[in-house]
């Protein structure tokens, strides 16, 4: 049958892993091109964290107690790790909305009918979202420096440790985009993905050490905050940035924040990637 010989032209990739990487890169490129053509999305994504930096610094700054200090400068240096971490988790919403949009428009069907790696559509999207997250972090760090944030304000640090902190932030953001991917695969419309992608992030990021010193919380809330995966990354950043307000708590994630942050992020990736890809395989738009 001549038809079959034709089909052989599209030879199956010999190595499933390299095919998966290649396909993910093709999809990531597609999403990056998209993002570059919708710059307003990136700009809106920046306004909110910049607003938080400014509002928290100037409105809350003078009335917050961090450790034993009530100085606005200490709060400013305390705050940034929290804002950075919160910002990277907000990538969840855009990731979810993008995937829901692809479902809605029939693109997921097209991808699923192609001989491509099963996880590549979602992996490509999460990679692209991480690139956007990295850009956002750069801009945010500049704004933070402008309002007076300084690394090493409470001890010594070095470039390696600062970069390490940003690495942990990116990893956390990447982990959260997989939560977004699962949400995107589970809802009907991009609008639903945006709102359901954001709503739960508020308790997760506020019941934490991001904006206040957890030692002033009631004990049960403090426990939640100290074991919150999100808090681990914030604490790790404060340690690596050598910024004030590091939690003295006995809770394991507060004592070993870098390890805790790594473990939490990897766990989130494994669990949510598995669920999201399973959903993709059986998805029907």
């Amino acid at each position, binding site marked *: *049958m*001549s*038809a*079959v010989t*034709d*089909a052989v*032209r*599209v*030879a*199956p*990739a010999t190595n499933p892993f390299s*095919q998966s990487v*290649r*396909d993910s890169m*093709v*999809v990531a*490129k*597609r999403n990056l*091109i*998209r993002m570059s*053509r*919708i710059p307003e999305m990136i700009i809106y994504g920046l306004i909110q964290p910049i607003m938080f930096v400014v509002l928290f610094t100037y409105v809350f700054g003078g009335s917050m107690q961090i450790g034993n200090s009530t100085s606005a400068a200490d709060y400013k240096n305390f705050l940034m790790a929290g804002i950075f971490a919160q910002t990277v988790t907000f990538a969840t919403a855009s990731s979810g909305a993008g995937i829901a949009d692809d479902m809605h*428009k*029939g*693109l997921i*069907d*097209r*991808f*699923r*009918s*192609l*001989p*491509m790696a099963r996880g*590549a559509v979602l992996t490509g999207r999460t990679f692209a979202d991480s690139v956007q997250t990295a850009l956002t972090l750069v801009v945010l760090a500049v704004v933070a420096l402008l309002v007076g944030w300084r690394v090493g304000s409470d001890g010594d640090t070095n470039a390696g440790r600062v970069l390490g902190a940003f690495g942990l932030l990116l990893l956390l953001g990447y982990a959260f985009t997989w939560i977004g991917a699962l949400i995107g695969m589970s809802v*009907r419309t991009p609008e639903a993905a945006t709102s359901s992608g954001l709503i739960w992030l508020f308790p997760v990021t506020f019941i934490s050490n991001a904006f206040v010193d957890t030692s002033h919380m009631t004990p049960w809330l403090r426990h939640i905050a100290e074991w919150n995966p999100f808090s681990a990354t914030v604490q790790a950043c404060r340690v690596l940035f050598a910024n004030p307000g590091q939690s003295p708590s006995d809770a394991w994630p507060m004592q070993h924040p870098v390890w805790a942050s790594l473990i939490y992020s990897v766990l989130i990736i494994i669990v949510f990637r598995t669920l999201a890809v399973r959903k993709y395989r*059986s998805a*029907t*738009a």
Partner: protein
Amino acid sequence: MPGAIYAEGLVKTFGDVRALDGVDLDVPEGTVLGLLGPNGAGKTTAVRCLTTLLRPDSGSAVVAGIDVLKHPDAVRRSIGLSGQFAAVDEYLTGRENLQMVGQLYQMKAKAAKARADELLAQFDLADAADRPTKTYSGGMRRRLDLAAALVVSPPVMFMDEPTTGLDPRNRQLLWEVIKRLVSGGTTLLLTTQYLEEADHLAHDIAVVDHGHVIAKGTSDQLKARTGGERVEVVVHERDDIQPASEVLRGFGKGDTTVEDHMRKLTVPVTGGAKLLAEVIRELDTRGIEIDDIGLRRPTLDDVFLSLTGHLAEVGNEENDKDKKEAAK
């Protein structure tokens, strides 16, 4: 030898809706099967099962000689799918869309680029190649979507309602493309709710209703089942209805139906054009002035009506059901 598309006893249920209720299909290589039916009949579900997007509850399917349930990935290498929506990325240009699809069919970047250029020219999209598809018209998008399905010249193609929502001109254009494709030896399964379209493009037609194939055959065979041809006369004067009816009685093979308000008379006949000429002569001899006369063959609309007892509905209720089905 089974055809390029072969299905036996496909069943798929969504909750308590039996979207497919034992569908058998057999499409010989190089032919076109038109899957014809109203919204919600199960056409899309059948396509989704055959293109590996949906796993049937039971039944088996073989596409391009490959078992769909056992080797879905091998099937995906041999098929092209153009779905109900133009599934192209609206922020990517036409060229970028085709290149991406080519690469995901595992072509090398360079080969994918060359193939994209070829298809853009072939589908009359070269001028718009570097514009985001957001700026394309509906017809252009559908053409691009079809081009994307053809990137690797798959031996078997599936098109789910390819011309739904297109204006007549664009529909004609797409028909031409499809005909060219089929003349190149591609096997095609096409769903449509336009009876005219199935008549125009398909070698064989399977009429689907409520998840069943209720009739199969060539367009002519299906029409023959509905009864033969008829002569239709529209007389100029209302007073002529009575004498014209007497003339027709002499030629007809059955009762003459009269639509008074339209001054139209219809009678079943056999004998084709020759008989029509005789009818005209006789009417002329009697001095009956006519506005219109013709030999009418049954349309697929008539086929549908006689098979299901209802016209092919394109109602809202059915539409919703189809959407519900698609959403699951």
